[in-house]
C-alpha cells in the first residue's frame, strides 16, 4: 500500500484539502483555509481559471484521492529496509576482513629478523652474502659519493639526500642522506631522533620493531670508517597521495664529525613493505654500504 497521508484523500472536491504543514513549505494565502485566504479562494474558484489543460475536470484540485491498489509502491525497500541491507553488507565485508586478518597475522604484531644481511658488522669485514656484481654507476653528490647498485635508479635527489629505487616499480626504496646536527652527539640519540622524525612526519604510532634491537655496524666517511647503528622502525607509511602500507623503515645511521668540527648525521634509510623488508634488505649489495663514501665525515674522537 502506498504511503499517502490521510489529507491527500480529501482533495477531490473544489475545496482544497488542508495540506500538511511540512517543514520548510510555506502555504500561499489561497490555501490557507483558516485565514483570509478563504474569501480570496472562493472569489477565484472557477475551475476553468486554474485547472490545467488535460485536467479539465470541474471540481478537481491538484490533490487526488489515494491511488488505487496495485499502483506501484512509492518505495522499493521496506520500512528501515535500507538500514537492514546496508548493515548486512557491511557486516559481511567487515567479518571477511576480520577473519582474513586473524588468519594472516602479519607484521604488525610479530616482527622478527635481523638487520640487512650485507650491512657490515663491526668486527667483521666479510659480508654474510656474496657481493653483487660491481656497478659502474656512482653518483657524486655534495654530501657523498653514492654507489648505485645494478638494477637501481636515482628517483629523487637533493642537496643533502638521494633516493634509489629498484627498477620495475614497487614500494621499496633506499635513501642516503647527511644533515647537520645541533644537539645530538651519539648514535643512540640519533636513533631516537630518527624515530621521532618518523612519528612526526608519518605515523604517530611508529615504534622500533620488536625483536630488532639496535645493532652496531659502520659506514664509510671520507675520514675513515664511522661507528654506526642499524635500527628498524615499524610504521604505517602514507606517502602523499594516500598510498598507505605497513612498512619497515631501516636505518644505518651514524654521528660523524665534519672538518669544521661540527657534528652531522650520516645514514642509509631502507624502506619496504613489512612483508618484503627482510628480502629487500638482504638483496642490497654490500658495496652499497662499503663503497658509498660520505663527504667530509670523520669518526668521532
Amino acid at each position, binding site marked *: 500500500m*502506498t504511503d*499517502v*497521508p490521510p489529507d491527500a484523500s480529501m482533495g*477531490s472536491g473544489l475545496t*482544497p484539502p488542508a*495540506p500538511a504543514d511540512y517543514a*520548510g*513549505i*510555506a*502555504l500561499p494565502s*489561497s*490555501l490557507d483555509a483558516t485565514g483570509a485566504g478563504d474569501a480570496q*479562494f472562493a472569489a477565484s474558484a472557477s475551475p476553468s481559471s*486554474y*485547472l*490545467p489543460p488535460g*485536467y479539465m*475536470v470541474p471540481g*478537481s*484540485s*491538484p490533490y*487526488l*484521492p*489515494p491511488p488505487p491498489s496495485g*499502483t*506501484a509502491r*512509492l*518505495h*522499493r525497500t521496506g520500512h528501515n529496509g*535500507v*538500514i537492514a541491507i*546496508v*548493515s548486512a553488507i*557491511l557486516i559481511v565485508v*567487515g567479518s571477511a*576482513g*576480520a577473519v582474513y*586478518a586473524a588468519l594472516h597475522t*602479519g*607484521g*604488525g604484531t*610479530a616482527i622478527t629478523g635481523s638487520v640487512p644481511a650485507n650491512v657490515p658488522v663491526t668486527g667483521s669485514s666479510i659480508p654474510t652474502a656474496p657481493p653483487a656484481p660491481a656497478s659502474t654507476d656512482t653518483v657524486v653528490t655534495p654530501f657523498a659519493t653514492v654507489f648505485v647498485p645494478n638494477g637501481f635508479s636515482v628517483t*629523487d635527489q637533493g642537496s643533502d639526500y638521494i*633516493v634509489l629505487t629498484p627498477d620495475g*616499480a614497487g614500494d621499496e*626504496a633506499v*635513501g642516503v642522506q647527511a644533515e647537520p646536527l645541533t644537539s645530538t652527539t651519539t648514535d643512540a640519540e640519533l636513533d631516537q631522533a630518527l624515530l621521532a622524525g618518523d612519528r612526526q612526519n608519518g605515523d*604517530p*604510532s611508529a615504534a622500533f620493531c620488536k625483536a630488532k634491537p639496535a645493532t652496531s655496524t659502520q659506514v664509510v666517511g671520507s675520514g675513515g670508517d664511522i661507528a654506526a647503528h642499524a635500527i628498524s622502525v615499524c610504521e*604505517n*607509511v602514507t*606517502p*602523499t*597521495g*594516500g*598510498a*598507505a602500507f*605497513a612498512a619497515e623503515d631501516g636505518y644505518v645511521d651514524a654521528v660523524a664529525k665534519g672538518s669544521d668540527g661540527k657534528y652531522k648525521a650520516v645514514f642509509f634509510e631502507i624502506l619496504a*613493505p613489512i*612483508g618484503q623488508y627482510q628480502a629487500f634488505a638482504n638483496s642490497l649489495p654490500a658495496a652499497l654500504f662499503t663503497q658509498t663514501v660520505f663527504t667530509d665525515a670523520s669518526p668521532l674522537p
Partner: protein
Amino acid sequence: MTCDHCGKQVPDAVFCTNCGAHQGLAGDAIAAQERPQHFAAHPGEHVSQPSVLSTLFPHLGHQKLHEFRTAFLLGVATIVVLVATGLIVAALLVSIFLVPTLYLVSLYEAQVYRNEPALVLGATLVGGIILGLVVTVLADHIIGISLRTSTGPILGYTVLLPVIQLIVMPLPALVLRSRPQFGETIDGLVFGVAAGLGFSIAESFVHYSRVIADEGVQTNSASWIYPMVSLAVLVPLMHGSTAGAIAATLWRPSRGGSGRWVSYLGIPMALIAVVAFYAGGHILVSHDTAPLLVLFFQGAIVLSVIVYIRHLVHHALLEEGRDLGYRAIVCAHCHHHVMAAGFCPSCGAALAASPRRETGAAPVAVVAADATAGART
C-alpha cells in the same frame, strides 16, 4: 490560476507545477522564481545548505533519506568500533565500501537506471573501478614514493594526479550521455557520482592493499582513526562530488537560463577543489597541523563542492522541468497524491528528482473525463 511567472494555467497550489515557481510572491521575483529557500530536489532545504546526502542522493524522499543517514552513521560507528578493537583490516574494508554501498542501494531504491540496470551500473560503477585500478597502479609506478619531502612526488601526488583523476573519473558516466532516456542534468550528476565512487573503491584498494594483506590484529590502532575517517568519508565524497559536478556540467543540454553562470564554474570549481584538497592538506600536514584540523579543512572543501552542485542541480531542475505533461503521482517528498507536471504543486519538488517509477494513478473521474475529451476531439 495563472502562474505568476510562466503565465500558464496551473492548479491552484503553493508551487507552479509547470515551472516550479513559488506562488504568491509576485513582489520578489528571485524568491518566487529561483526559490532559493526551496532546493528543487529537496524543497525543505535552502539551496546553499551544505547537506551531503540530499545533494548526492537527490532522488530520495525525506523518509528514505533519513534511513540512509541512519545507515551511514551506523557505518561510521562500526568503523570506529573496529578501529578501537584493533580490527584494522575489517575497518578498512568497511570504510572502502560504506559510501559506495549506500549509493548502490539508493540507485536501486530510486531506480535511477530505469530499466537498464546492467548498462548503467556497468558503465558507471564498474567503469569507475576499472579506470581507478589503471590510473592508481600506473601513478604509483610512475610517480613512485619518496623517503622524504621532495618536490617531484609532492607535485605528482597533490597536483598532477588529482587533475588526471578529475579528467578520467567522469568518463564512464559520459558514455551514457547520448542515451535519450538519460537526458537530464540530474542523471549526469548521479552517474558521475557513481563513477567517482567506483574509482574511489579501486584507488583505496590499491593504496591499502599492503595493509590488507599484511596487517594483523593491531594493538596500537589509535593512529588509524584519522586515515580511516578520510578513507570512509572524505575521499569517496571528494571523488564522487567532483566527478558528479563535472559530469552534470557537461551533461547540461544548454548553458542558458538563470543558472548559466553555474554551468561555467563546474570544471574550474572541481579543479580548484581537488588541488586544494590534496595540496592544501599536504601543506597543513607538513606544518605539523593537528590531524583533526586537516580533516576539517578537507571536509570544508568537500562541502564547498556540495554547495556548488546544489546550485547547479537546482537551476537545471527548474529549467528542465518546464512544459512536461500532466500525470498523477505520489510525491516522494511530501507523499501527496497529486496531478503534476514538472513539479509537485504541493511541496515544489522537481519530479525529475523523484524515483524513476510511476507511483500514482489518475482517479477514475479524471481518466473518464480525459477519455471523453479525447472522443470529442
